[in-house]
């Protein structure tokens, strides 16, 4: 199986380990992730003003490229913010032909291809794992189940809301938890899993982010979690980097992308998974379940 993915800006910079671990884990499952030949930044946040069509150009240009140049019906995203922005823009122009026409007029001189007609499906990689490959099939491929590892799946906002584009039940999502169970981990659940991490306030006012992560990490730890698992590069930054800077958190929880834990359960090399690129080192926890550097397993201590 061959899947086209849209990386977005952050997956190419501070979240390189997300991309690398996704490619490696999917390859292990027999799926090739190949990058779109051309793409631009999606704009990160969907504009919420009714008259601001200019900000729809970036995401629709990506979708036009998928449809007209690569002739695909589906594009997969890794980043939650890209997923949300592309999905909401797609929905907007599919429901409003007049707006689609205006956006297409703006892009006329872009290249020789026709305008976007609204046929592309925007899909998050987690949906591919659940709906196309299937968690049962993934479970069968697990070499080293994450036995004894207590993980807290954190969803944040952009995977779930608004409900029209969400990939799971907005109030009680289970998609990451179900994947973790397939990998053999113990899932810690708490309603705080759907609360915002502080998002872009990490730039302008860190105190807002600190308040958020103290609550999220506090709740997860009080339920016995040993690690957080998530899918959004901005949530990763806030829950990993900012958590490490927060002096009120005495015992920080390591943070993983779900693709990294898939790699660990598949026995992939830790260098490929980029486990050294985290601010809070997650490797001591992995050594506890027996995972060694090269993806081999030593003595299982739990």
């Amino acid at each position: 199986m061959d899947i086209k993915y849209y990386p977005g800006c952050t997956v190419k910079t501070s979240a390189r380990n997300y991309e690398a671990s996704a490619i490696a884990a999917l390859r292990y499952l027999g799926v090739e992730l190949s990058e779109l030949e051309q793409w631009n930044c999606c704009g990160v946040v969907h504009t919420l003003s009714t008259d601001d069509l200019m900000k729809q150009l970036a995401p629709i240009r990506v979708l036009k490229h998928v449809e007209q140049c690569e002739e695909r019906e589906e594009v997969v995203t890794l980043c939650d913010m890209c997923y949300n922005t592309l999905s909401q823009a797609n929905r907007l122009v599919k429901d409003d032909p007049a707006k689609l026409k205006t956006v297409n007029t703006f892009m006329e001189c872009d290249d020789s291809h026709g305008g976007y007609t609204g046929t592309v499906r925007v899909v998050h990689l987690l949906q591919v794992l659940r709906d196309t490959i299937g968690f049962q099939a993934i479970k069968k491929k697990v070499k080293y189940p994450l036995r004894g590892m207590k993980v807290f799946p954190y969803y944040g906002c952009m995977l779930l809301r608004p409900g029209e584009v969400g990939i799971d039940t907005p109030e009680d999502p289970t998609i990451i938890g179900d994947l973790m169970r397939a990998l053999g981990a113990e899932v810690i659940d708490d309603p705080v899993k759907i609360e915002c991490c502080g998002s872009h306030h990490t730039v302008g006012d860190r105190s807002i982010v600190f308040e958020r992560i103290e609550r999220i990490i506090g709740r997860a730890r009080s339920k016995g979690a040993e690690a957080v698992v998530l899918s959004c590069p901005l949530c990763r930054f806030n829950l990993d980097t900012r958590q490490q800077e927060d002096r009120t958190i005495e015992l920080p929880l390591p943070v993983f992308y779900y693709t990294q834990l898939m790699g660990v359960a598949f026995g992939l090399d830790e260098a490929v998974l980029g486990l050294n690129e985290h601010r809070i080192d997650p490797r001591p926890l992995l050594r506890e379940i027996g995972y060694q550097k090269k993806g081999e397993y030593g003595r299982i201590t739990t």
Partner: protein
Amino acid sequence: MIKITTRRPASDLVERVAELSGQSIFACYQCGTCSSGCPFIEAMDLHPHMVLRHLMFGMEDVLTSKTIWVCASCFMCAERCPRDIDMARIMEALRQVNLRENVDHIKISHMTEAELEGVPQIALVAHFRKNTG
């Protein structure tokens, strides 16, 4: 003495916000669900349901409130509103009313290297989109 009148508020802010956001502001019955679920409530001066109430009365203090900049568009309120009002869009409209006066809420040139260190692009672009016109 309180005087009750049928006169419309002098400010046209409510119409402007309704147009920019596409939301029915007067549909709100002040149940407070938006405020009770808001993860940023502690950093806000006016709670989200209060912003709506002030708007209904044409009170322009909403434009100078801290709340509209604290809202990060996480859509928790929009998802839960029993009147189907997308509060995140109303907050965005209020930011836009300010930003379209050509006054940015942040000064990008004043940001320090320490502030920017290691910050992912998605955080920067989102921050600029929410705080600059």
